[in-house]
């Protein structure tokens, strides 16, 4: 019985944990509950992925009402994979969070962090798992509202403005998405994704359906921080508590990208998105501009968290680039990079969390000589950084490899070259951190700085080891990504 109920439990367990954390009103107890809920969610998503790979897509009727009258959960290769990314990153970063959050958030607010964390997890998982577009919007609201809260709970006062800016941009994005959904409902009379996919072709030449497409693309693009709609991201990541930055970097934008894939490929279909609307011609330049501009800006950042924020925008560029190639290899690269980027960015933010815990700052100058006082932490940062650049034996290499192969498949030599050149930019900004950490002159306080405690180091190294493991053994990630890409593109052809 439990096996058939797993889709509901995936979302309902964190949903129940959220309000319960509030009722507990106790920092450690709330953390304990939230952490267990997060790990349970991870095991459920593993079980779901296993089930999907073995027996094909799963459909679950909420309330026992058949779609399209009721709401359907529909899990296939791609969203099973996304569920795994979200719950995996959440489980590891929340294990890291206890020590870090107690340090970075006022003690009376700690239980609220875990309430918010659970709500955010509920929202993200809910978006990824559902087969109903209005249900997407509802869970998008849950995840957005809770992320504004999580960012603003930081002790750093600048987090308030960052959260407010994110709130304004996020609300505009959500409104656009809602307008898009409403227009689609007006034309088709349904909210169910597969039902929409079946009914859109008959009305696809109406202006309403086209403008709905534009609203959805812009709205979700804002949420995903696709260049040039990224302005909210760097500050939000820079001033949020470290564990929260790690969580968001690994999950929030990934879910938005997943939504884009869903709308482009499953709901509207390849023919409409890329032949009628010529979306690839807009996405490709946007992706390239994002990669180069954001990477260049990242080089000049003094706050390392901000630097990673800009780097995230560039990495989202790579994902969009993969999508814009509209080939199985390209989409495989995009889906792979969803997973791989989540791993490396979460690892890097978590490592910075360790630095912040001891140093109290992550600006470049304060990191001088830290490679010797915190060898394990900086060792982790260096490995994570190399993964970001795309050195062989790390996950970063795998993503770039597939992206380049996809570009070469279409005889786009110049594009493969650009991807390689952009990696050099990443090397530059990562090197600037390594340089100051190992070759900089230590400041006066450097003798007081000790290595981070084990409660922080263990989760950090789990992420780093995952970065290397999945860089060597790619059977799981590439296998799933390839099947997901085939499923997405197969619908149309």
């Amino acid at each position, binding site marked *: 019985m439990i096996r058939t109920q797993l889709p509901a439990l995936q979302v309902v367990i964190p949903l129940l944990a959220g*309000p319960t954390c509030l009722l507990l009103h106790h920092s450690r107890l709330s953390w304990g509950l939230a952490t267990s809920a997060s790990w349970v969610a991870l095991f459920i998503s593993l079980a779901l992925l296993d089930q999907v790979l073995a027996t094909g897509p799963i459909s679950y009727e909420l309330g026992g009402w058949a779609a399209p009258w009721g709401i359907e959960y529909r899990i296939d290769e791609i969203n099973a994979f996304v569920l795994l990314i979200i719950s995996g990153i959440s489980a590891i970063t929340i294990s890291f969070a206890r020590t870090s959050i107690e340090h970075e958030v006022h003690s009376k607010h700690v239980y609220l962090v875990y309430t918010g964390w659970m709500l955010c997890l509920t929202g993200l998982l809910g978006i990824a798992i559902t087969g109903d577009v209005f249900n997407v919007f509802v869970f998008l609201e849950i995840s957005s509202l809770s992320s504004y809260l999580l960012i603003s709970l930081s002790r750093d006062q600048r987090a308030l403005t960052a959260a407010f800016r994110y709130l304004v941009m996020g609300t505009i994005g959500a409104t656009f998405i809602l307008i898009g959904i409403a227009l689609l409902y007006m034309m088709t009379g349904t909210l169910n994704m597969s039902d929409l996919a079946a009914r859109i072709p008959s009305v696809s030449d109406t202006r309403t359906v086209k403008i709905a497409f534009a609203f959805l693309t812009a709205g979700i693009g804002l949420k995903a921080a696709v260049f040039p709609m990224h302005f909210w991201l760097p500050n939000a990541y820079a001033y949020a508590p470290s564990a929260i930055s790690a969580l968001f970097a690994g999950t929030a934008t990934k879910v938005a990208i997943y939504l884009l894939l869903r709308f482009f490929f499953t709901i509207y279909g390849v023919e409409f998105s890329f032949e009628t609307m010529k979306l690839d011609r807009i996405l490709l330049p946007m992706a390239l501009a994002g990669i180069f501009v954001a990477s260049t800006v990242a080089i000049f950042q003094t706050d390392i968290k901000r630097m990673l924020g800009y780097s995230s925008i560039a990495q989202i560029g790579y994902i969009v680039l993969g999508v814009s190639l509209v080939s199985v290899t390209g989409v495989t690269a995009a889906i792979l990079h969803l997973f791989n980027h989540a791993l490396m960015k979460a690892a890097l933010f978590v490592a910075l969390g360790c630095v912040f815990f001891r140093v109290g700052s992550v600006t470049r100058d304060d990191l001088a000589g830290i490679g010797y006082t915190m060898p394990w932490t900086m060792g982790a940062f260096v490995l994570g950084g190399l993964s970001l650049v795309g050195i062989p034996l790390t996950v970063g290499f795998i993503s770039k490899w597939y992206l380049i192969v996809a570009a070469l498949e279409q005889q786009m030599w110049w594009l493969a070259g650009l991807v390689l050149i952009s990696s050099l930019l990443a090397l530059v900004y990562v090197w600037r951190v390594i340089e100051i950490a190992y070759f900089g002159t230590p400041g006066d306080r450097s003798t007081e700085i000790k290595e981070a405690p084990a409660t922080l180091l263990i989760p950090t190294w789990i992420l780093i080891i995952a970065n290397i493991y999945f860089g060597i053994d790619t059977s799981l990630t590439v296998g799933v990504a390839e099947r997901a890409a085939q499923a997405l593109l197969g619908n149309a052809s």
Partner: protein
Amino acid sequence: MLSLLTVTALAVARLDQLFAAVMLFGIYSLLSAALFVVMDAVDVAFTEAAVGAGISIILMLGALALTSREQRPVPRSRHWIALVVVVVTGAGLIYGTLDIPLYADPNAPAHLHVAPRYLQQSMQEIGIPNVVTSVLASYRGYDTLGETVVIFTAAVGVIGRLGVATEGRIEPKTGGLEHYLILRITAKFMLPLILVFALYVQFHGDFGPGGGFQAGVIFASAFILYGLVFGMENVTAVAPPVVVRSLAAIGVLIYAGVGVVSLLMGSNFLDYNILGHEPTHGQHLGIFLVEFGVGVTVAASMISLFYAYASYQREK
């Protein structure tokens, strides 16, 4: 009425006086509510009237009390960016609406696909006359659970930001309005009526317009009125902030709990059929309980928001 709506919206955009803008927002909401009634969407109208014209105005005034009544001037250059975005969006919307089915067209897709089953079979499948409640609480009950969580999240957000005095008394800056005899007597007269009306809306949602959302808001407004007129001290004695905040969480747990029970009884999440001896009986019970959960969360969240605004003044 649409033109009145446009005029109000333009006026709000032009005004620098935030206090007046908030008042105009109230008018805007009331106008939209009237428009919804004309369109026969009474449930939506009711919600708009209770939320848009009622509670959100109070909350916005609360926010104004904490900040300022006037808008700070914005540099001219930013006007242009905003204008471009607005014009592009507006043009897009108009372009998009050129092809939509005509208003009240019986052949519009929205009326032909899923709606007929809701209208024709909900009586046998669920057994309550108000189709809106059937769709909201049962067919798409999971969305409503999500919305309840959204409201809870919003309340948690404000509590987290402004903080609520967890113990001790909340004292308003100016003191209550208890010295005004007329206000006091009118308020005393109104309070029981508001509370009874809220309960009526809560439990009559199956038959007429209404339900947990509207009832929760109306219920909360009684407490807010009490707090405004008789002072925060009295209202927190009746409803201590900690209790109210916990109730917001408990409401969500009631709703989700119904789902868990149906899951434990061997059916799908939120499948009410299994709760009773026969399907419609189970549906009745399920809808009653989830609407109750919604009402509790909404009322408690709104009261928490009010407390948060009121208590923040003291900390400053």
